[in-house]
């Protein structure tokens, strides 16, 4: 069942009496994630009665539904119809969100460690980290926290041995092969290399996050002056 890469995808899995999972593979794969994003988009645009919520992760789509209004047979049919439509219906391209980051200094206390660990200088770490177009494979763990794929192998660094009690919101970090941004103040063990002045989660906004799963992110190195200017503009 696990080795299923045959045309019988998606693999449907029951997650209780009100949630159906559609699994399109078990790989971190941009093409699979793109397919998941497109199907989620088509399904949510159609606003089918009985489907409450659609949540996507790496290669899996969750449909939260009301069994009083819709059966899983019908859900399966809708998933297959969406898949067929993908060829004909263009879905909007994934957005690319630019995230300004002030690397190093007080904002990135672990930048030098990441450089030493990978036998690079700090400048090279910044260049490599901001050169990649990262894909948001999932949002979770904390409100607005995104799981990014695509970190340059030469930047992989283990987590801190002792996590910090407080990592400021906006901190950009590396943990093993992952990179990500702390969306809110929290304890954390990632190696912090910089900070963005952008707000990544604001419950008071109609769109609380500037991105969604399936979008792309690019980091843009800015100096401290620009960091403060953006921050000032945001709070103005």
């Amino acid at each position, binding site marked *: 069942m696990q080795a299923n890469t045959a045309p019988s995808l998606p693999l449907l899995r029951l*997650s*209780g009496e009100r949630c159906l999972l559609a699994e399109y593979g078990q790989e971190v794969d941009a093409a699979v994630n793109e397919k998941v994003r497109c199907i989620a988009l088509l399904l949510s645009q159609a606003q089918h009665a009985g489907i409450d919520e659609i949540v996507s992760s790496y290669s899996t789509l969750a449909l939260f539904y009301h069994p009083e209004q819709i059966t899983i047979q019908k859900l399966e049919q809708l998933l297959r119809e969406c898949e067929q439509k993908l060829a004909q219906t263009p879905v909007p391209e994934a957005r690319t969100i630019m995230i300004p980051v002030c690397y190093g200094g007080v904002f990135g206390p672990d930048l030098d460690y990441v450089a030493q660990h990978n036998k690079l200088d700090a400048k090279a770490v910044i260049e490599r980290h901001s050169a990649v177009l990262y894909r948001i494979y999932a*949002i979770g763990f904390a409100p607005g926290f995104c799981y990014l794929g695509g970190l340059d192998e030469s930047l992989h660094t283990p987590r801190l041995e002792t996590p910090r009690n407080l990592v400021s919101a906006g901190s950009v970090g590396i943990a093993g092969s992952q990179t990500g941004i702390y969306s*809110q103040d929290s304890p954390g063990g990632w190696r912090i290399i910089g900070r963005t002045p952008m707000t990544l989660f604001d419950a008071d906004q109609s769109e609380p996050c500037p991105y969604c799963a399936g979008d792309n992110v690019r980091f843009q190195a800015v100096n401290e002056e620009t960091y403060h200017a953006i921050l000032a503009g945001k709070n103005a």
Partner: protein
Amino acid sequence: MSAALRIINPGACTTVQDLGRPGQAHLGVPVSGALDDYAHRVANWLVGNPPSCATLEMTMVGAEIEVLIPCQIALAGADMDLVINGQPMLQWQSYVVNKSDRIRLGLAKNGCRTYLAVSGGIDCPQVLASRSTCLSGRLGGYEGRMLKAGDILACGRPAATEYTKRRLPWSPRYTETIVVRAISGPQDDWFTQHNQLFFASIYSLSPQSNRMGCRLQGPAIIRDTNAPENLLSIPIAAGNVQIPADGQPIVLFREQTIGGYPCIATVLSCDLWRLAQAQPGATVHFTEVSLEGGQKISSDWHRFFAAIENSTYYVGVENLQ
């Protein structure tokens, strides 16, 4: 919107909760909400509130509270030895209280969580259309945190102009042995060797359980030797029974949106309140139901609630203390 309650002693973990904020998982925001929605809904019904009103959820040790304005209150859930102005009182019924009255709750005798409803509902700013506290995300409720001594809570305007004293003619039993119904999956095919063991075993609730989930101790459930090594994080549904590497199951509540452990089974949403009321040391047993069977049980449960909420059962003043 007037100041209604002042917290004198918050108890062990007291938070503002309502029916939660569904529909935000794509933002990484969990549903949260009252873990025992049965007791939460009944507490609201007792004071004439719709189920969407916010209540105070108290865990294991209840709060001591000063009343600041005349209002109607009710407590439903675990028996925490309710005392009003020094007099022992019954839970599962409503009382009119006045300025300077004191409500005091103690240690949970059976069950784990008690809900305090006040006429008009606890009022605090809505965050993403809910007043629920999400402790991990530090949002909603009262400043996104557990209540502390000195906190002052407002209440909304009551739906009715006159108070009707209500009592639930029964109360749910919170037993030391808890049986919950569950549907196999989503990753039951990772555990084909141990599915039977899981449904046949008796587990004990670990004291490490919290609003995130129920940690269980018992026979280890080990994945099949040919099962994948890792699971790419998947969207979580409340009731998912995660099996981490040590084989000790964790039943998730509504505080997590995605997770990376395979889930052998999922508890029916209508049985989660039983786990929310389980004290540390309680025994938990899972019974397997089919999808069709589980959907029928779940739909019946929703109809049962609608019936309670539409009923107007109340008792005369002489029957109340």
